[in-house]
């Protein structure tokens, strides 16, 4: 007997939302508009946290002091993403990396760019943990994490 296919109905749900950055992240992203990367300095342990935090997660101290940190740092860890899946904010290939900026004590998650990403074997030879990188800014600032285009290797 011929197998009859049942109907499949295509539909789409959209969920628009607006996230409030709050006091701390507003200050952090306002810094981006002036090409500044700000960190929060804990009054107790003295650590500088990037991105900014309203309190120190180690000391549970409230933080009010903001300090500007360097636009350069070292790669702590990285991963090349080639596989594209639905809902990605960034089109592959890209490198997501944890970057420890000079003058800060935390790892900042961002992209590594400015290099050829087409060949993974070549990327493995180019990108290394401990490598120095530097922020590259988008000319247009929106007070958004992507105001920093990516971090590129320091020549």
């Amino acid at each position, binding site marked *: 007997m011929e197998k009859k296919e*049942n*109907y499949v*109905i295509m539909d*789409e749900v959209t969920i628009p939302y607006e*996230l409030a*950055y709050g*006091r701390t*992240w*507003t200050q952090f992203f306002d810094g981006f508009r002036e090409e500044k990367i700000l960190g929060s300095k804990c009054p107790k342990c003295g650590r500088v946290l990037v991105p900014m935090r309203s309190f120190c997660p180690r000391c549970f101290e409230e933080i009010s002091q903001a300090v500007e940190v360097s636009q350069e740092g070292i790669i702590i860890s990285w991963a090349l993403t080639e596989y594209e899946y639905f809902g990605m904010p960034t089109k592959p290939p890209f490198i997501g990396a944890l970057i420890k900026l000079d003058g800060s004590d935390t790892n900042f998650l961002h992209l590594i760019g400015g290099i050829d990403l087409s060949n993974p074997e070549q990327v493995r030879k180019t990108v290394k943990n401990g490598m120095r990188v530097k922020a590259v800014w988008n000319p247009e600032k929106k007070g958004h994490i992507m105001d920093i285009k990516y971090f590129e290797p320091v020549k």
Partner: protein
Amino acid sequence: MSKEFSTFKKVIRLPHKYGAGPTFTRFYEGLKQGKIYGTKCPECGDVLVPSRSMCPKCHVNLSEWVEVSQEGVIVSWAQTDKDFFGKPGQGTYTVALIRLDATGCDFLHLLGGNLSKVKTGSRVKAVWNEEKKGHMLDIKYFEPK
């Protein structure tokens, strides 16, 4: 008033598909031919439209298919003239529960045509779209007789 803090705006998209299953598939295929089908319960005798695979009253499987009338009476209706998020259509429209003749449940669809004298209990008749896709809106709306 301007906002005290910055915000981040985004839209989440969730495209999806769902299987209509054999019962609804047969119902939609009926619509494609300009016919409205129901399933008849062998216990209570109710004809359910749109067709169901089981009778929610008697909890028995339904396998008897009957074509039902394209006319019925309005049981309840509501006109929507405001836009709101997630509204399943545009502009002003009128939805109604319609009891098709000789059926045992109310059928949810749109009302159209001249609605100036429409009221609960009014007789209405299905108006079909020229092009049929095997979709609930192959019936354009029900209009007052």
